[in-house]
């Protein structure tokens, strides 16, 4: 508990000093330059506007929920330790809030990739019944077009009349803010890319070897010669959640194949029903390839974002490794689901190897986000 508070205070302190991917500094160690769309260049004013919008609880039916409700700075932009997020009136959805940290490097957003960009992603929680609950985006527009601070800000940032602000500008600003939340520069990065052999403990070095070899992690949680996103931006069924509803899959799949939902309808369906949520990417593209498949999250800062998996069902990193070690089932010997991804198989890791792998993943926390004890570079 003390550790969590220490982490929270440090993160708050660090983040308060301003965006870390400041222009001219280059990307963080271990990461490539942040992809920025041509139609949404970064400016300090836009970022500040996005920050404000991100934290504005007025954009919900109860006036109590903002993006930050589930993506809190102090909690590495998640709502750890909640398994699934709570929206208006504490209504729960079906999925664990992904971190915004390094989301800028994802080629699609949400666990099922139903949103092609940060800009598009920002539209959906506002109108989801269990998140902000709005019927449409008009209440947001009403506020930003009348609140004098917003009116001035939109004019300055986008060169438009405050009255004419649209969700296009709103989401662009939010996305720009999110693009500043990129963090590399972890002990792993210093070890791997700066050849600082003291940056990892012996156990973590063993863990890295397991990550690449026996653990079979690196193919999805990508490390490359000069950078490491720790995600392949693809979708895989790894046997979480779906194992419990195997008998229901024909019924659920048929419902989607026959109903032919729009993306907005998919958004409501998958967050509204836990069984439907297990279809994963299949609900979006209706391809057999993707039954029960979810996007590979980045492992950067993973130690800060418990609990794990799309449904928050795995509490600790150790249990995550055990799930993989069992070959895609949480309890060894459970039946494997028929649609299990081809990359998942039993790993035969020993208890010690599992500990090593967990220790390695703890080395993926960016120095800027580390708790005070240990090695960090404090930026002012």
């Amino acid at each position: 508990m003390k550790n969590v508070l220490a982490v929270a205070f440090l993160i708050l302190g660090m983040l308060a000093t301003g965006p870390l991917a400041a222009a001219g500094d280059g990307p963080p160690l271990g990461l490539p330059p942040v992809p920025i769309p041509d139609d949404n260049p970064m400016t300090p004013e836009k970022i500040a506007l996005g920050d404000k919008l991100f934290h504005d609880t007025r954009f919900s039916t109860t006036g109590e929920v903002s993006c930050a409700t589930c993506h809190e700075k102090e909690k590495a932009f998640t709502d750890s330790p909640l398994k699934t997020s709570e929206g208006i009136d504490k209504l729960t959805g079906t999925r664990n809030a992904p971190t915004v940290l390094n989301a800028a490097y994802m080629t699609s957003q949400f666990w099922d990739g139903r949103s092609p960009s940060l800009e598009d992603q920002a539209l959906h929680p506002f109108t989801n019944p269990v998140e902000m609950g709005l019927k449409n985006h008009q209440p947001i527009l009403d506020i930003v077009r009348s609140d004098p601070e917003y009116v001035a800000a939109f004019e300055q940032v986008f060169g438009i009349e405050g009255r004419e602000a649209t969700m296009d500008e709103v989401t662009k600003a939010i996305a720009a803010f999110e693009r500043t939340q990129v963090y590399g520069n972890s002990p792993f990065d210093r070890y791997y890319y700066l050849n600082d052999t003291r940056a990892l403990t012996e156990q973590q070095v063993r863990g890295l070897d397991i990550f690449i070899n026996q653990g079979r992690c690196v193919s999805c949680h990508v490390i490359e010669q000069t950078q490491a996103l720790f995600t392949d931006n693809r979708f895989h069924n790894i046997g979480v959640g779906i194992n419990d509803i195997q008998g229901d899959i024909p019924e659920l799949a048929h419902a989607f194949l026959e109903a032919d939902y729009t993306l907005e309808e998919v958004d409501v369906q998958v967050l509204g029903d836990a069984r439907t949520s297990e279809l994963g990417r299949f609900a979006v593209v209706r391809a057999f390839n993707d039954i029960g498949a979810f996007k590979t999250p980045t492992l950067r800062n993973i130690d800060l974002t418990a609990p794990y998996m799309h449904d928050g069902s795995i509490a600790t990193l150790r249990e995550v490794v055990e799930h993989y070690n069992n070959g895609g089932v949480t309890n060894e010997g459970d039946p494997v689901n028929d649609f299990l991804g081809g990359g998942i198989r039993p790993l035969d890791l020993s208890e010690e190897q599992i500990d090593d792998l967990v220790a390695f993943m703890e080395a993926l926390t960016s120095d800027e986000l580390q708790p005070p004890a240990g090695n960090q570079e404090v930026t002012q």
Partner: protein
Amino acid sequence: MSSRSTISRRRFLKAAGMAAGAGLLPVSSVRLSFADEKKDFTFAYISDAHIQHIRGTKFVRNWDRGLIRAVAETNLMVPEPDFVMFGGDLAQLGTKPELDHGAEMLSKLKHKTYCVMGEHDYYLDLGEHWSKLFGPQYYSFDHKGVHFVVLNSILTFDEWTHERWPSAEQRMLEMAGLDNPNGSPFMVGEKQRDWLKQDLAAVPTTTPVVVFSHSPIQKIYKGWNFWTEDAEEVQALLKPYASATVLYGHVHQIQYNQIGNIAFQSVMATAWPWPYPESYAHAEMDWPVMTVPMNRADPFFERDATGWQTVDLMKGRTGLNYTLYNNTARTVKFCTKTGRPRDVSYQDESARIPPQMHY
């Protein structure tokens, strides 16, 4: 029924267009007009499972998972397929445990299933146990105006089959190695060709004919037995037909070709992919040049470049929709304009993507 599925398909394709590269499978069948619309239909085709026994109750997990997945997905098909074909090589070394384990997995299919003999099923006991499980090794049936023929096209010379090897196990091992120089070319053989001639005598030349075979009924690459020794004789028997198609397994890759009036299309394996013969530096072969290669696989993902397919019969011609894991789905169907099978997305050189060119 048909108009509803046409509308669904359009909206599905629109949504799918947003998810390019995510591994699409058009699960509804394509309905084009036929003389009698009721006669368009779809069936599923699973092939080359290669269930491999290690010892005791242990089988190679990778191949098991491939067949399990294909069966589970076939059972999800909307609309449902008219029937399922299993294209041969259910077992790896033709043993009873392998055939039984494979048959058990196939038994989960909800639909009527027909089976084709493969060499890996045959050369241990010459099809004895297989026949107990699945019935005759060659036969024909009619369905919605199409005449279907199933051949056992993996036979070989009598001397090799009955006299060359000291034991059945040895014989099976020799035939099991694709690149084994001690192997022997596949053939349909005189007995079956005579039977086929008789069988086709009753079939008008206007009736579409579809032949299921394990070997290609073509001479592609002898070194890997992508070969049927009496291909020309069998093709000659199909020559009179306005629409003739051969669907074959064995090659574990996407291939398609047109020889005269006969369209040839291969089906994927659920077990593992094979390289294209042109990737073997020392191969001399006659490659079906119109084939756009399947996308190159990442061997980390065991299901990559494996798969199964649905076959649409439209005007008696076949269109194959390949499910490919971790990969963009492919559709190859007969194009009436060019008179040959064509990949609907990638046939033009300019449409190719790196995983098809960069092997």
